[in-house]
């Protein structure tokens, strides 16, 4: 059971951290894009959506190029802090976060566009700065849509395989997530382990979906009656 539990805990840890990263980046980018118009915005938006449409292996390749010892970020991290992200669980977090990012971005974009601009204007006439308007009006009103995006991001991070394998490898107990452990078990002909891991994956996914549905149904009190 331990060999099944370890990949599960690692997957949950990696996916949760990746979701947080993707959520913060997605909301920040959605806000930055929402205030601009024209071609530059469309180009930026499609570039940021690329991780959604690229094959995960292509994503993994580019992450290796950037995060590797000779890469722009990887080289800088190694030279200044002696950190290497390749073949670490932190690397798996980055890979999953990049793969999940377009989902939080798109959900946040849609959610912010839904917020009636009049509420933001009302907050401005009441003296609030743009940052305060964002945290006290725009974000709370867009919260449900943003949460739905986070849920999709978490599911995407849980299922992440290709990019994670390329960046973090498959070190049992260290970077071997559920999906990679399943692949390894099947390749090694270990059907018993594979079946256990698949079952754990399935149950975890269902539990998370139920939790998320209950969470989303419990809207803030003021929004309940308006819906």
């Amino acid at each position, binding site marked *: 059971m331990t060999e099944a539990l370890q990949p599960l805990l690692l997957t949950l840890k990696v996916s949760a951290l990746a979701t947080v990263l993707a959520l913060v980046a997605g909301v920040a980018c959605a806000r930055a894009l929402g205030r601009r118009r024209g071609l530059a915005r469309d180009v930026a938006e499609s570039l940021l959506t690329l991780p959604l449409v690229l094959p995960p292996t292509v994503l993994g390749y580019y992450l290796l190029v950037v995060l590797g010892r000779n890469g722009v970020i990887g080289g800088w991290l190694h030279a200044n802090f002696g950190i290497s992200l390749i073949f670490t669980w932190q690397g798996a977090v980055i890979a999953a976060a990049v793969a999940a990012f377009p989902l939080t971005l798109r959900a946040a974009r849609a959610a912010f566009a839904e917020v*009636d601009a009049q509420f933001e204007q009302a907050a401005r*006439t*009441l*003296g609030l700065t743009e940052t305060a308007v964002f*945290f006290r009006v725009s974000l709370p*009103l867009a919260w449900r849509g943003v949460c739905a995006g986070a849920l999709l991001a978490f599911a995407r991070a849980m299922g992440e395989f290709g990019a994670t394998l390329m960046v973090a490898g498959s070190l049992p107990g260290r970077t071997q997530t559920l999906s990679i452990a399943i692949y390894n078990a099947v390749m090694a002909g270990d059907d018993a382990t594979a079946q256990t891991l698949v079952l754990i994956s399935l149950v975890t996914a269902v539990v998370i979906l139920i939790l998320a549905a209950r969470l989303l149904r419990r809207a803030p009190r003021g929004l309940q009656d308006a819906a």
Partner: protein
Amino acid sequence: MRIEVDIDRTLRARDRQFRLAASFVSTAGITVLFGPSGAGKTLTLRAIAGLLHCDHGRIVLNETTLFDSTHGIDLPARRRGIGFVFQDYALFPHLNVVQNVAFARAQGWFAPRRAMDADIGDLLEAFALSELAESYPAQLSGGQRQRVALARAIAAQPHLLLLDEPFAALDAPLRAHLRTELLAIRERFAIPMVVITHDPDDVAALGGTVVTIEKGRVLEA
């Protein structure tokens, strides 16, 4: 109170354009902007509040220049000290009555845990909202929403209060009642107001200086 407005703004949609070129000066406690819908009354009000940018012109409230295109002055809405009561009130749907009314009291990035204090309590009392303190906007009637919107604007202690069609969403008996209530609030808080209406009855009841706007222009009195 003295407000001087002289604004020029051309709005373009795909196939039509509208030019707002309104100017008036008022020293009255209540200034009524009167005219048919689509005349540019709301745009004028939004320009005064700093929610609509003007191409040219000047807006001066008492001794403060809020906007002056020749000197490059354009104070953002948050620094104009002008309260705005929107036509459909724009109460924050995720906040209850106390949190809405106390909204301007805390200016930080995040709302304080406790919105209620003695001043807010007095304000709720003055607007007969004490019983509704914990209610959310979706649970309130039209008249109650309007009182919350007024209290929220006044809590910010503005130098001027702008009201966009404050009675349009209400039925006739309530409208008459709220006209008197609005005048009482004006007296009690000694706050000058600019009120938009398309209803001649409102003009008669509210008194004050009447500015008639049609097709983006102020008609000579």
